[in-house]
């Protein structure tokens, strides 16, 4: 195995502040939380979605519905991925028709994951609109998709990989680039 250089881009505090800012930006753009729901892409996007929704709820003294999306079934690379994907359940226990959906993921890269998520969301109903929030945008899009809310833009080489580690899944809080 090759030696990998790892550099930390965000620490726990940095992640917290980014999510706080994103929550404010969402509220600003949507003028409050009316009809706004937050849906994260499993698994790390789902954790981020919960945090963003909590932040928004605190600011507005209300509750924002949160859902989690498992996109495995909609992937276009199921036959190519190296590891066999694990199927989880999608958890959206509210009607999305007419809602403004904030779609949350950890890293935005090629845009293919977001494409899957959009396809899946549309199968659940007809939302008023869908906005995209990501913690990290690392560039290299392969589809015409752009984020509405970004925690941090990180220009990366295509060979590099960006890892978001959250305490829910990885016992630590940081964003690192492995190059």
């Amino acid at each position: 195995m090759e030696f990998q250089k790892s550099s930390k881009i965000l620490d726990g505090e940095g992640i917290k502040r980014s999510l706080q800012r994103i929550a404010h930006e969402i509220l600003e753009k949507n003028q409050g939380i009316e009809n706004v729901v937050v849906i994260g892409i499993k698994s790390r996007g789902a954790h981020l979605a919960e945090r963003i929704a909590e932040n928004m709820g605190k600011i507005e003294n209300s509750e924002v519905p949160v859902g989690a999306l498992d996109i495995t079934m909609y992937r276009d690379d199921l036959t190519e991925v190296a590891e066999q994907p694990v199927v989880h359940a999608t958890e959206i226990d509210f009607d999305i028709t007419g809602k403004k959906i904030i779609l949350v993921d950890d890293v935005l890269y090629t845009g293919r994951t977001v494409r899957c998520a959009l396809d899946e969301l549309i199968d659940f109903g007809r939302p008023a609109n869908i906005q995209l929030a990501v913690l990290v945008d690392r560039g290299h899009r392969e589809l015409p998709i752009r984020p509405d809310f970004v925690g941090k833009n990180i220009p990366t080489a295509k060979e590099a990989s960006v890892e978001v580690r959250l305490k829910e899944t990885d016992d630590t809080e940081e964003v690192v680039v492995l190059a």
Partner: protein
Amino acid sequence: MTKKKQIPWEKKNLLGIEELSEEEIQLILDHAVGFKEILGRPIPKVPTLRGKTIVNLFCEPSTRTRSSFELAAKRLSADTLNVATASSSFAKGESLKDTAKNIEAMKIDMIIMRHACAGAPLFLSKNVDASVINAGDGSHEHPTQALLDVFTVREKLGKVSGLKVSIIGDIAHSRVARSNIWALTKMGASVTVCGPKTLLPAEIEKMGIKATSSLREAVEGADVLNVLRIQFERQKKAFFPSLREYVREFGIKADVLEKYAKKDIVIMHPGPINRGVELSQEVADGPYSVILDQVTNGVAVRMAILFLLGHARGKGGLKSRKNGKK
């Protein structure tokens, strides 16, 4: 969201429960949870197996299993083709191998097979490149039924390990019983089979289970009763003196449950029910019955199996075949 490392699915075919490990059974059940959620969506269809073609080759009558497989395949966006014996070339005397080879020449990916002869799916799997799923072969195995039964038990009672499950009825002719015994014992349940002596195979205890001809013994303390259908079509001679006597001795009726059963007992039946024979009307439609849940779960479990076989990593998996020399 658990970080539990899952084992990859490597088998090309699903021929029986006997050949599965406990981990593989768990893998199927865990996946089925996700697929059950899909069935509850406004549009219960995902594009996962788009472009794959699945053939239902049923050489024995079936409503539930065939429609369940067909629906599972359609929910995953696969194309399905039904071949029923009566209207196919079997009737003209074509051999099983020839029929299969011909269907395969039409570029298909999976064959789901039901056959009156034990071992027919195994024979088929040795002769075709497509994945083969056993949908019931003679009195041998019916793996998907056992998996959906175990899934239903796990869903209703939260676990399988440590439970007492009694299988009641015609054990000798039942592929459902055999597959269930394998699945339940692998998962750590303790199994009792109950029926008239003539319908209990000799030395069945060697599968690691108890056998009894006393219904009371089977019902007392049991968490789950899996009541089997009396298979009149497989019984070429009389195995019990009269139907009335069978109903009296082994039929599950409200008074039997009242006298011997636990309060929260779960009653299953693989269908189709002979109402008034193995299950009385009131029990079949009663509060303990999960028979219709079994049917719903059947679609979810079969989706999980089609998904896993469709994306198997093993040598025989669709992936390697596509990229390989063929």
